[in-house]
């Protein structure tokens, strides 16, 4: 069962958080229009997820389709592979950007990028150690 009460509660939480961010931004409590945009996006995503959740509960065909897509082993494989590719690409782009930053003499940006690469590599090794113990 993909869409359960937990997912519904999370969707409602996104909508409420979005409304709060939007309201605080409109009331000038939050200084940036970025929060208004973020709030709007959270409301849209939350409502979209709530509607999907309700459709999932009502329609048997839709429930079957979603459950098959979520449990399909090829889809799981593709999701894992996509995350792996994303990780490789992000690290590669950051390494190239740090070299460019070094050439341009932007040492602060270079340090941030290298720290970020080090953090990703660190998280990778921790995840690897945990998974190696589990499997």
């Amino acid at each position: 069962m993909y869409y359960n009460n937990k997912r519904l509660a999370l969707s409602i939480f996104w909508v409420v958080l979005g409304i709060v961010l939007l309201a605080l931004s409109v009331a000038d409590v939050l200084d940036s229009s970025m929060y208004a945009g973020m709030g709007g996006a959270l409301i849209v995503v939350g409502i979209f997820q709530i509607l999907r959740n309700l459709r999932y509960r009502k329609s048997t065909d839709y429930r079957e389709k979603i459950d098959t897509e979520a449990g399909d082993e090829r889809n799981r494989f593709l999701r894992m592979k996509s995350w792996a590719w994303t990780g490789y690409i992000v690290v590669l782009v950051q390494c190239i950007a740090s070299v460019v930053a070094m050439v341009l003499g932007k040492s602060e940006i270079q340090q941030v990028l290298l720290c970020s690469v080090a953090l990703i590599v660190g998280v990778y090794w921790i995840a690897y150690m945990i998974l190696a113990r589990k499997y």
Partner: protein
Amino acid sequence: MKNRIEEIRNEKGIRQEELAKQMGVSRQTISSLENGRYNPSILLAHKIAQFFEMTIEEVFLFEEE
């Protein structure tokens, strides 16, 4: 890994959609299996072989690469 899924499925007159539904996977997964683009888990291979009332070796052709 090569397999005989498409051949056996056609012999038995089963559509990809039906096989996918029985296996609890998407039709795209069956299509990818038949084209040899995706290798199934041992669990899915077992389920498919069981569905066709065959052994795994009869459906999936193991070859050393």
